[in-house]
Every structure is written in C-alpha cells, then in structure tokens.
C-alpha cells in the first residue's frame, strides 16, 4: 500500500543549526500519526517543509506517491494537502462564513469572479455553514474572526482545513494555549475526523497524543529516532530519557 504521506531523509540547515537532520516516516491512509519531541526539536520546520514554505536541503517528500519536494507551496493544496497553523492564520476582518467560503472557492478554483458578491453566494455559504457545523461553530458564522476566542480560532483553523477536502491534514499544535475544557473539545473533534483523513499531528499535550494517535514518531534534534505504537512509545526508555522524563521532571 502506498503511504499517503512519505517523508524520506529530510535535512535542512540554517546557518550552523541543523533544524532537520534526517527525518523519515510514513503515514498510511486514514492513519493519525503524531510527532512528538522536546522544544527545539524542529517540529515546526518539518511542517513548513511538508507544506512547502521551506525547501529542504536534502531528502524527498511524497504525497499520494507523487514527489512534491519541488512543488511550490501554493500548488500543494490542490494535490491533497491541507494545514492548520500553530499560530492562527485566519482572515480577522472577515466573518467565519466568509473565511470558509474563500477556502471553498480556492479549492474549486473559482476565484476570479469579479461581479457576484461573495457575501450572498449561496453556492459557497451553504457548504461553508456545513463545515462550521462540523467543527462546532455553527452558531458563530456571522461573527468576525477578530471577535473569536482562542479556542474558537483553533476550531476555525480545522474547518478551513476540512473545507479544502484534502486527503492529508497537517495539524500544528491544535491544542496549544487551550484550557482543559477546550482541549477536551478539540480532542473530541479530532477523534471524529480520525480514520477519514491521513492526519499528521504535532502536539505537546501528551494526554491528547496518547488518546488520539495510531502511531507516534519521536523527533529529537531534527532527527526521527523512533516510530511506534502508543504503547511502544510510552514504554521506550530512550523516549523517557529524551522527552518524557524531561517533561515530568
């Protein structure tokens, strides 16, 4: 079976720092694959390379069997890649519905209409409301993004990724900065998505990772040192030393 996303021997150096130093892993269709690692392990750099914002020095990235290493960032979504950002990247001056509507229009490639107002385009707003409903924001469609709470922004990030109808979702710390209640709600939301998409989840919240992941890859100093099931990772002495021990010290 071809993995939906395959990362092979990725390397990236910034000046004297090897931010990514041999990262390899595969994500199978429908798998929720978590990446964990201490701060500074290079998780964000890794995501940026998969999304195409940063070009790796070495190694290849395959999406559904296609080599996308040299594909520009703006063309990767069309090949089935969607992303939720660690620090929310939303359109704060637009409503939630408008945010999702842009994502739908972009996916359909219908973005050069210059006459019909987007704000009354039922072909966009109808589906947009559905996506908001799926992430639990149905009641907030008319609010401006700038009025949203932190947790709600995170939910909207997920809604935008869903609206792209991608096969692979990159979720960069969706629980970051959330309270316990919001975190639980996000975990619930991700559980509902699990199995329908190949998901790469970068997350610091260990409880959430252990609750959600099918497999976990450990990243230390830009290198993937281990991939395994939740049980394997939880009990691995190397991981405890490198990461968990440090966290719980």
């Amino acid at each position, binding site marked *: 079976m071809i993995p939906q996303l395959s990362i092979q021997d990725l390397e990236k150096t910034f000046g004297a720092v090897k931010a990514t130093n041999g990262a390899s892993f595969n994500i199978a269709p429908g798998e929720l694959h978590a990446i964990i690692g201490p701060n500074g392990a290079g998780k964000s750099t890794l995501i940026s390379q998969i*999304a195409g*914002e940063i070009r790796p020095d070495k190694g290849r990235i395959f999406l559904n069997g296609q080599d996308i290493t040299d594909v520009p*960032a*703006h*063309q*990767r*979504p*069309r090949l089935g890649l*969607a*992303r939720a*950002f660690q620090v929310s*990247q*939303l*359109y*704060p*001056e*637009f*409503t939630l519905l*408008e945010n999702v*509507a*842009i*994502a739908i*229009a*972009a*996916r359909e490639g*219908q*973005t*050069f*209409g*210059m*006459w*019909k*107002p*987007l*704000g009354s*385009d039922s072909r*966009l707003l109808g589906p947009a409301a559905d996506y908001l409903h799926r992430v639990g924001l149905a*009641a*907030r469609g*008319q*609010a*401006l993004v700038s*009025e949203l709470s932190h947790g709600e922004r995170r939910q909207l990030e997920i809604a*935008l990724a869903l609206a*792209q109808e991608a096969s692979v979702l990159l979720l960069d710390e969706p629980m970051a900065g959330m309270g316990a209640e919001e975190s639980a709600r996000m975990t619930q939301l991700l559980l509902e998505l699990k199995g329908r998409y190949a998901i790469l989840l970068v997350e610091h919240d260990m409880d959430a990772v252990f609750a959600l992941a099918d497999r976990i890859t450990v990243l230390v100093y830009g290198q993937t040192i281990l991939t395994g099931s939740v049980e394997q990772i939880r009990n691995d002495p190397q991981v405890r030393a490198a990461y968990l021990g440090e966290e719980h010290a």
Partner: protein
Amino acid sequence: MSRRVLIDLLCLATFALLPLLASWLHEPFLVSLFTRLAIYGMAAASLDLLIGYGAMISFGHAAFFGLGGYVVGVIGFHTSQAMPLWGWEGSSSALIVWPLSLLVCALFALVVGYLSLRTSGVQFIMITLAFGQMLYFVLSSLSLYGGDDGILLNERNTLPGLDLENPVQFYYLCLGLLVAWLLFCRRLVNSRFGYVLRGLKQSERRSISLGLHPLRYRLSAFVIAGVGGGLAGILWANYAMFVSPDMGAWHKSGELMAMVILGGVGTLIGPVLGAAVYLGLEQVLSLWTEHWLLIFGPLLLVVVLFGKKGLYGLLLSPWPRWRKPPVPNAPPAIANSEVRS
C-alpha cells in the same frame, strides 16, 4: 437607510446637480472645478483599490494617469498634424482612441506590476516610484511631442451623441464614468476576487495554504487599477486639452496618495472626497496666498498624524452604535456587513 448610503447619495446628488447650481450662481468655473474633482477622484479611487484592498503601496500610480493622457495626446497630435503614426492616419473618435489608450495602460501595468510584485514593503514602494520616474523621463525626452512642455491639443475626442466641447456635457460624462467606476470597484471588492485580494492583505500564509497564488490576484488588481488611472488620464487630456510629463511625475503620485489618505483608505468613495478636499483646499488657499503650501503642509500632517480613518470615516463615526465590541457571553454579534466592507 444606513448612514453610509445617505452620505453616498448626498455626494452623488451634489455632483449631479452641480451644473444647475453653477448656472444659478453664474459661476461656470464651478463646472470646471468639479470636472477636475471627478477625474482626480477616479484616479484616487483606483489607487485605493491597490492601497486599501490589496496592501500594495504604489508610489507610481500617476504613471498610468500620465500614460493614459499621453496616448490621447500623441494620437491627437498625429491626427491634427496629418502625420501618420506607423502608417495609421489617426482618429479623434473616443471609441477608438480611448480603448487603445486603456490597452496601452493595461500592458504597461502588466509589465510594471509583474516586475514590482517580486518585491514587497519599502522595496515595492520604491520600485513603483522608479518605474513611474522612468516613464516620466522617457516622456520628457520625447522632443517630437514637446519634451518637458508636452502637447497642446486642438480638440477633444468625439463621442456619438455627446458634444464633449460643451463643458456641462463633458462634466456629466466624467461624472457618469466616475460613478460607473466606483460601482464596478464596489462590486469587485465584494466579489470572490475581492475577498481573495483582501484576504492576501490579512494573511498571505493562509492564502497560500489554501492554494492561492498571491501574484495572480495582486497583478490582476494592479492592472485593473492601472486601467482606472489611465481612464482618468484620458479624461484629463480631454479636459485640459494638454498633456505634459508632469502628469506622471512622482509628486503627482504623492498627491494621489494624499487624496486616498485624506478621504479614507479602503473606502473607494472616501478618496473621491479626498480629491475634492485636496483640490478644493488648493483652490481656496491659493486664492488667499501664493504660499498656500505653508498652510496645506501642516494641515496634511495633522490629518495623517491624528485622523486615522480619513474624512469618510469621520463622516460615519459619530454614530458608533453598531461598532460596539460584543459583550462577552452574549449571543453572537450580528455583524453589519455593510459597515465593514
């Protein structure tokens, strides 16, 4: 009826009834002044499309104003001198000359925009300025067309059914085109394209991650704005029956920016008001003293430093009820989309 619609209609009514007022006051020069306002308003509104909606601070917008005017001037020169231009004996019909001029402006905007949009920030401001200056110097060096002195035109272009030599008819043509342009821009910024363009301003990273290629939208907007600037230049050439390189000089670009800021960035109608205030103040102050810039400079400074939202924002602001922040835990705020857009 919202306050905004009321203000828009009031402006429209003032412009529409102006010739009546002028003849009643026996001040025909008012028609001439308001023709200038309409033309500059169009140029400023098209610059607002770039600055206010596309976050592209172009410091070379007057280049399109100058180029649009020069195409009219050059064709007029060849036509009246019976001097064929590359084998074409020329034309004075607006239906031929104007689209041709707009096409030239669009092509120029395409090239300048494509090159300039490879940069951003200060570099973008400066490279647009540089392209504007290049055009300015090229126009200045065209000795056949008067060099620095420019071209005097013998007649305005002709349009079936209208007598453009008649000041009032010409004024209504400018006004009609201005209103049509504003309506088009309003539709544009609220369309899918407009949302993508405004979205790029708010988060370019998000847009790219949605699969949008920033250059395509920014460049399209740049060309559209260039055409708007060009149309204003065409009208100016016909109004003044004179074109000169100064139409494209950098201080003209600065003036257009000042009009946008004065009126309110990202409001489209605001810049038209900005143009009116700018030209009106120039008119009034220069009647009073030859050193009118001594007063105008500080005035502009005060507006920039303290008047964040411009004139149009000021007109809308005394009724702040609908802009109150939502009360926490209250039902979701019903955003008034008309106020925001």
